[in-house]
């Protein structure tokens, strides 16, 4: 079972890391989809099937599509697809900062005693989740509805091209 966990982890991390390093935006997006699949696999491994489905649906199904649309909308020629490499200094400093954060997190994880009860993989049924959603978390459910409304409204307002706008900004 730990082997499965290690496999999933390596796969996910590797595809995420390569996605963040690749120069081609489309390739990056595809690798990120792979990494999101990896996360879904992890959720399955942990016994949270519903979350795994949600992950696939939302990330792989929706977010990646939005990203691809954005990529296509914001390029003017084929060359734009290939993102120029980040400047070396910026990449190095980013790596340095990332590594430092990683060291801090890892040290904290190793230094903290975590009581773990060796249990079998738990399960949680959709019915149980539903009861929780409609029960103690009803308020959160309402708020998420509002958040999605705002996001939709905001995205439409910001992204929509007004006629007057396009005239003003025509090159």
């Amino acid at each position, binding site marked *: 079972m730990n082997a499965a966990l290690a496999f999933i982890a390596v796969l996910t991390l590797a595809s995420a890391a390569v996605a963040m390093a690749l120069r081609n935006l489309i390739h990056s997006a595809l690798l990120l989809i792979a990494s999101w699949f990896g996360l879904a696999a992890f959720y399955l491994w942990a016994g949270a099937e519903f979350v795994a489905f949600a992950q696939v649906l939302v990330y792989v199904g929706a977010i990646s599509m939005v990203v691809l649309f954005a990529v296509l909308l914001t390029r003017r020629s084929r060359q734009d697809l290939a993102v120029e490499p980040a400047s070396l200094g910026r990449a190095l400093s980013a790596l340095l900062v990332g590594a430092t954060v990683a060291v*801090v*997190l890892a*040290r*904290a*994880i190793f*230094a*903290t*005693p*975590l009581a773990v009860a060796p249990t079998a993989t738990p399960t949680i049924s959709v019915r149980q989740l539903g009861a929780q959603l409609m*029960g*103690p*978390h*009803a*308020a*959160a459910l*309402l*708020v*998420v509805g*509002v*958040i999605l*409304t*705002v*996001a939709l*409204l*905001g995205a439409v*307002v*910001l992204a929509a091209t*007004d006629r*007057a*706008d396009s005239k*003003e900004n025509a090159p």
Partner: protein
Amino acid sequence: MSPDYTGLFQALRPETSLLFGALVALGLDLSLFRRHTSGERLNLALWIGALAVLAAGAHVWFGPHGPIFGGVLILDPLAVATRLGVLALTLLTLGVATAARTPRNPAEYVAIILFATTGFMLMAAAQQLLLAFLALELASLSLYVLAGFDKTRPESAEAALKYFLFGGMAAAFLLFGFSLIYGLTGSIELLEIARQLTLQGLSPLLVVALVMVLVAFGFKAAAAPFHLWAPDVYEGAPTPSAAFIASASKLAGFTLFARLLWPGLRAAAGNVSTLHGAPGWLPAVAVISAVSLLLGNFAALAQTNVRRLLAYSAIAHAGALLLGVIAAGRSGPAPFFFYAATYGLATVGAFGVLAVVERTGSCQKITDLAGLHRRSPLLAGCLAIFMLSLAGIPPLAGFFGKFTVFAAALQLGGLAGPAGWLAFLAIALSALALYYYLIVLKQALVAPPTANASRIVVPTLARFTLMAAAGLIVLFGVAPSLLLDLF
């Protein structure tokens, strides 16, 4: 145990009226008023928004109190006071919007302001990590959109993108921190977390979680070194949006985080009353506060852009407010609430003045305010009240905010401990603050107007808004008990 839905809906009536107002504004605008000029559409939306805010205020005032829905929300005095404060600041922001340039989608603009207000209202009352996170995200997403609302200016888009990326990063840190807190305590209810933490003590992973929460807090409060977005957003965003981000958002953010830190993470607070206190989040907040005070005050001196000056002064005020949060463990939330609310009033007012001046042309440089006393004595007078309140000159409200916060901070251990030093630093730097506020006032009150500057006609609603803000500042300065009696 069946959930108390009735109680929940009773408690959420203010939010419901805000959302209802937003939907009505959108609906009317889309159906009946499509053909009207954008000015008329803005006015309609603003009136609907104002009514919704007033209705929400009535619901807050007469609504239920105490823990709601099994303690997910708490309507204690701090929550009620913050909700009322947020609603008042929203109302003033709507007033400022009457004076500013009409946005291209007026109904959407007002609706998103109301959505953001809903987020603030929930932030004020959340007592559970999940709801806190969602409320924060609701407010933040709305504010990103508001910052980028002016599509004709590249500065607006740039400000919004920077704000969004910075905020997204902060949200990621916050969520990671929350996940660690959940892991360490097995709960997302603040009271349960507090109970668990008193048993556990401070572990390294908890320190990481605390600091991640503080990162998000620093972002929301615009405290150094997590302030970098603030000057750019204040400068680039449309004026009412900037006013809203600077005032209501800050008040709600301080309430939310003070609640997370004090009742929730009290066991990990540590100690700053003496130099060799216990470790915890208090020393970290003290450092953020000191850095904000120094950086905000010094950088404000160098500004030639009045909005950036307000932004850096906001950073300095965030430092003083954090001092109030530090002291809240002993003195209760009243001091920092008073400070944040009156600061919000003065800031909305200052941006309101800028919005009116902007009607006659650009108002970015401090020198754009030259000769304001000739162009509009009312504006100059109001600006003087706002600036002097920010500078903490008695008897304006800003002074009593400072007084109560510093008095509370000194109670932690006199001048001998770091809290006392911070209070001392804040008091010493307020002389510097006076200097840069006087630079603005000198332009507005003393300098002659430029040759082509005309008289400024202040629209009636904006006039009313500014006079209300100025009047409240004087009123709360003369009678602080009006606000403090909410506690």
